[in-house]
């Protein structure tokens, strides 16, 4: 089940790579701090510490990336 879900999601990711591009001058909203994935990175890391002491699973916070077309 997890393998099927993983394959499907990775396929979605590859397909999305061919999506139409958003222009650099259209990315103001994406650059807003309330849209950043990293905005909660520290909070998620702190939470992972006490969550792992209370729940049986882990993960979900990894990864980086996604630019704004600002060089």
């Amino acid at each position, binding site marked *: 089940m997890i393998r099927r879900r993983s394959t499907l999601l990775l396929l979605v990711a590859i397909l999305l790579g061919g999506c139409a591009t958003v222009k650099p001058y259209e*990315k103001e909203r*994406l650059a807003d701090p309330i849209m950043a994935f990293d905005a909660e990175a520290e909070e998620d890391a702190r939470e992972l510490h*006490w969550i792992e002491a209370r729940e049986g699973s882990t993960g979900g916070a990894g990864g980086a990336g996604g630019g704004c077309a600002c060089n």
Partner: protein
Amino acid sequence: MQLIRASLLAGLVSAVIVVPAHAALFDLPLQEQNDAYVFQFFSDVDDIRVTTHQNRYDVTLENDFALSLGLAHQTVVIPAVDAPPGSEDAVDAITTASRPIRDIGDAYEEYARTRKEVQFDLSRPGLGLGYYFSSEEDYLAQMVRAQWDRDFANENFNLSFGASYGWDAIDPLEDADGSDAADHRNTAYANVVATQVLTPSTVLRVGYERFWVGGLQHNPYRNVYVAGGNEIELHPDARTRQDVYLRLNQYLPLRASLKLEAKAYSDDWGVTSTTLGARLSQYVGESIVVRYRYRFYDQSSADFYSDDYTTPGGIDGFRTADYRLSAFDAHLFGTRIHWSLESILGDGGTWSGLALQLGYERYFNSNNFSANILEAGVSLGF
């Protein structure tokens, strides 16, 4: 062992303080800097209290290098057994305790443990390296990590690969009915993450993570009731864990955003789980952001979990009193306020990059466990 730990920690802490203080001396050109301090207080239904002080310093150097230094100090206080000595409740509490109890008197005293943590991360666009170290009375953890990422399609698509390797030294304290044999735990981790800008106000992230854990993975102080008696807890010494997750960030009218998250997890101990979450952030004026949050969690039990083991060997030779390996579901609600003081303190001044934040979360699960988490923080960009 204690002396080595203390020396290593002292050396790392000194480096953390020395680097920014002597940046001018060593002619390190610093650009944007940010320092953030967070205080967190956690308390749960069992009256366990966790106090955390965490500080993180970020600095951008020349040629797009960025350095991040983190320090944390955490104290966990486990209350004394409050049942009358010799009572069934007291015996039960002592048998299944997850803390060291050298003699019976220890159980009726509050127990405190401390964790100190240091991390370094050095990165530049496309590459990051990091080192993590934490130390407790009976546990020393170290980890190195690396990440590579690249943008495609005019920075509308990003692909990232990450990996880490951790090695932990475990030296249990003396415990009357536990095991104090020194042991280890090693963890290898890898991830792949894809981020795609979908529209000028929507971005999607998909990630896959895998962990390989080897070594001691049960609590050496805890006992399990089996076939009328009790035995030391025993988990397999190998575990392969994986999860796949999706995050969607959507900008909403009136300067708000909605972040959705879904994660599916499984491991070879038989635990599977689903996590669903949402975060709604809203600007109030120019300086304040209010955020509301909800998280739902549901998991199945491990293959060898039981409320009632009928043989000393447990199930397939393994036995556990760790409720984290049982089936349960959980909810978390929270709110947070972030306040940037720039408009009050004025542009360009030393303190103009000051921001405050305050947050509260409530967590509860179907095991009758609940907790309150309070956070307060201050950050300064300069």
